[in-house]
């Protein structure tokens, strides 16, 4: 029974996106990938949620500016376990163009573990979908671990 639920769960990744100070590019592409018919992630069971509490997969973009940092971390904490983080674009990983700015903190990895990285500036929607699928793989593995430890 648990196994079945575990198998099914991977087919319903709900997505929440966090903008940690990005330049819009990745955000617009995430919205495009998530909402428009041409890419239709709903056929993969994805749903875009308005509340972090409903989410399974978190898409993060942007270099994590100082001012948004605490808010991002707070929202991240509101996401129930198990959750998977996907870095969209290169900014969350290395800061991209904005590295070395006085208002840009260190890379997000310091605060939030990045499970999957989708490089690009911005990555095309297909790449984001690819990233979400990879994240589902990570999530499945995590669920299995979780369920094993429960039983």
């Amino acid at each position: 029974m648990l196994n079945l639920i575990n198998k099914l769960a991977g087919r319903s990744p709900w997505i929440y996106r966090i903008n940690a100070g990005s330049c819009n590019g990745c955000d617009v592409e995430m919205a495009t990938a998530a909402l428009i018919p041409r890419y239709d992630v709903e056929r993969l069971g994805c749903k875009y949620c308005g509340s972090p509490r409903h989410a399974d997969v978190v898409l993060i973009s942007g270099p994590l500016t100082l001012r948004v940092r605490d808010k991002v971390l707070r929202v991240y904490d509101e996401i129930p376990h198990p959750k998977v983080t996907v870095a969209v674009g290169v900014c969350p990983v290395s800061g991209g163009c904005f590295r070395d700015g006085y208002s840009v903190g260190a890379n997000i990895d310091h605060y939030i573990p990045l499970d999957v990285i989708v490089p690009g500036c911005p990555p095309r929607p297909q790449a984001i979908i690819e990233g979400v699928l990879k994240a589902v793989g990570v999530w499945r593995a995590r669920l299995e671990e979780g369920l094993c430890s429960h039983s």
Partner: protein
Amino acid sequence: MTTANTTNTYTLPVGPLHVALEEPMYFDIQVEGETVRGVQLTAGHVHRGMEALAMQRNYLQNVTLTERVCSLCSNSHPATYCMAVEALSGLTIPERAKYLRVIADEVKRIASHLFNVGIMAHLTGFDSLFMHAMEVREIMQDAKEGVYGNRMNLGQCVIGGCRRDIDEETAAFLRGQLEQLKPQLDELYGVFERDPLIRKRTRGIGLLPLAEAKRLAVVGPVARASGVAYDVRRKAPYAAYPELDFEVQSDTKGDVHSRALLRLREAVESVKLIEQCLRKMPSGPVCTEGMPAVPRGESVARSEAPRGEVFYYLRSDGTDTPQRLKWRVPTYMNWEALQVMLANCQVADIALIVNSIDPCISCTER
């Protein structure tokens, strides 16, 4: 009465991470029932200190850096920056490059306007229309990917001209995309103009009268929808615009609906502009040879981005990094106008009104 007030009004935080906002922005909205009584704004979530970064990067790196100010108007920034550098170092770009720059600008404008209008439909809960508008926008996204190689950041402008030439094959591809786009754009305009729900939700809200528009010096479609017919492409023409024929759109109603329609009309004009460019473009080089030396001095350049006037000020001390690079984006000017537009509106309309200035926060906060 005061006690009644304190119980009735409460603060509704919008943001900084809110689905209705494409970007982090924080409002504290004083709400009484469903009516907005006051708006307090906290900015700076996307402040990446880009002006300081620009002073650390050399002139060539700054082309890429300015492109990342914002991805929705990502062509206007490097183009205007390059204009500033060219003005300072006395470069004249090749004729063909002027046309290529116009094409890149207008392609971005169409995509940006369609995105904004689509988001407006999304905010009224009209998701089917949103998806339809975004599908129409995909035609332009494909064009960008096919011509320039990326869906958002074109990477077309460099100091001294353009990087990628449009050859016969690409021009044919671009023409094909435009042919596809035109009927769809007209149809979309009809829907946004006549749909009863869109009209009910967007007409008469977010009003910005002409006098206020002038006082707050708003720019771009927001100003033009309120009756200030200012378009940099006409008032201080650059690139190939003096040789091209287009109409500056304007309106006098100054509400959310008229701004959306104005954007769609501008998109139609942009299609015409691209077609003219493809027709008139002279042959020749697309970029000047070599890397320019930037002398000591200062220069100003501006252009009309999708959201309005983009302004660049460059000051050079003769080294290979700018002494000061300052830019001002349209949203920076339009943001304060929200105070006027949001006064006494409904909670349900906040997102619509904010979206109607096509806010670009990453531009504004840099």
